[in-house]
């Protein structure tokens, strides 16, 4: 039984077809990444999947219900953090906690926000405003904000796209850790332009071909034990082969022949 279901999604902006005939389903607790070049329609796809935008045709369901606007069980991490600059880190996280747990007391809201800021290592910076935080710290706040509402499904729109490589690697590990530590199945759909990032975090990866009228590749299952380290990507035969096949699809638009893959592996 799939948790998130996209069926025959199509979207155009004017005469320009962005997405064409996209179908995708995620099982509960599954982490799926969509890898694609910039301007391939990835962000549009995640917006449609989350209900922030509507498709021209096709349907989206989450837990069997048609998606019509952003749903209660969902959380989202934006590429540009999208923190409110006039609120402290704590207040930014708390703002997400309040509507998620309306029956709680203000004290409980604050405790929950602090708990998640602590989990991303920002307990001491809770009272700083986003302007006083580095890019990596801001994205940590943004991730804490998404997790603090305890979502069942998480949409990640190039969450680490604006960060330098080192910060990126750290935050990838932290995100994987948060998903594991959630204590409930967290389904996640991540958009990224990094094949390595997708392999590190996902159970399954799809490549989104180049637009206009982009379509999804078949799924590439990531059959690697967790936790995964960055070193694994360089040395593990399965990981190397997967990288090759994904890169092949992204450049040529075709799935590489298995024979060729074996040769490389």
């Amino acid at each position: 039984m799939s948790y998130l279901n996209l069926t025959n999604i199509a979207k155009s902006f004017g005469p320009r077809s962005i997405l064409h005939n996209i179908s995708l389903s995620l099982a509960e607790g599954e982490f799926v990444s969509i890898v694609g070049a910039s301007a391939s329609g990835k962000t549009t796809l995640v917006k449609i999947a989350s209900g922030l935008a509507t498709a021209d045709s096709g349907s989206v369901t989450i837990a069997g219900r048609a998606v019509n606007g952003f749903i209660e069980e969902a959380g989202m991490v934006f590429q540009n953090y999208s923190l409110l600059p006039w609120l402290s880190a704590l207040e930014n996280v708390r703002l997400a906690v309040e509507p998620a747990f309306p029956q709680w007391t203000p004290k409980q809201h604050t405790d929950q926000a602090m708990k998640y800021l602590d989990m991303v290592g920002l307990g001491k910076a809770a009272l700083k405003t986003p302007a006083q935080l580095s890019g990596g710290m801001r994205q940590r706040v943004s991730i804490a904000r998404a997790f603090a509402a305890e979502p069942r499904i998480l949409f990640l729109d190039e969450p680490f796209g604006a960060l330098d490589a080192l910060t990126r690697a750290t935050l990838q590990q932290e995100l994987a850790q948060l998903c594991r530590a959630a204590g409930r199945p967290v389904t996640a759909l991540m958009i990224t332009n990094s094949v390595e990032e997708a392999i590190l975090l996902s159970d399954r990866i799809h490549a989104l071909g180049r637009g206009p009228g982009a379509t999804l590749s078949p799924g590439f299952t990531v059959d690697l034990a967790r936790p995964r380290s960055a070193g694994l990507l360089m040395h593990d035969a399965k990981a190397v082969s997967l990288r090759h096949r994904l890169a092949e699809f992204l450049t040529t638009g075709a799935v590489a022949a298995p024979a060729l893959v074996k040769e490389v592996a």
Partner: protein
Amino acid sequence: MKKSIVSILLSFVGIFLVLGLWAAISANVAPDLPSPLRTWEESRLYIMEPWQKRGEMDQGIGLMTAYSLLRVAKGFALALLIGTPLGFLLGSSPLFFRMFDPTIQILRPISPLAWLPLGLILFRQSEPAALFTIALCSMWPTVVNTMQGVRAIPQDYHNVAKVLRLSPWRKFTKIMLPATLPYMFSGYRLSLGIAWLVIVAAEMLTGTPGVGGFLWQEYNSLIYSHILLCILTIGIVGFILNRLMGFAETRLRAA
């Protein structure tokens, strides 16, 4: 520090040059124009005893200014109370904007001198007519700036409101209002400037006590030096008001 002393000195040099020009004009070109010295001597009583009330239209400059400021404060408050919500509506609803923008563009350039008689007809009393005129003339920068502020809210913030499922009220207080505040304050500053401009016209036509009323009365009584006193007072008060609002604005932006 040294630079600011220099600029203060330079501004005084400028003031003295203008005073010199004024003295030269009154001595050589326009004999009816009182010289700076005569203006000072004849206005001294009003400046040195600013809170003295000798008659309805014969009061110290401090009292006169206070009357005008109070009137401006009321009219300005009215302008903000009407203009701010109007700006929010225009900024957030395209339908509302298309419906009312042309009307606003037509109402905006109308002079206070044109509104005042209408106010007098409507309210039959000078005080509410003056407030009506001040509010109507000064609210437009508030309306337009607030509207632009609301429009300038990045789509990201709207998405955040959707993602966090904020109630409309929470969205307003936590996102819309803080995001618009700097724009609103620029509007307020411009509105206050206009309100202070309008006060003189309103008081002249209604003959109410205040800097503008006093100016017009002294013109009719042929005491020209007091006209200059009023002009200088209006300028200085306007300058101070603008500075205060500018100060509040920078504090706000820094916060």
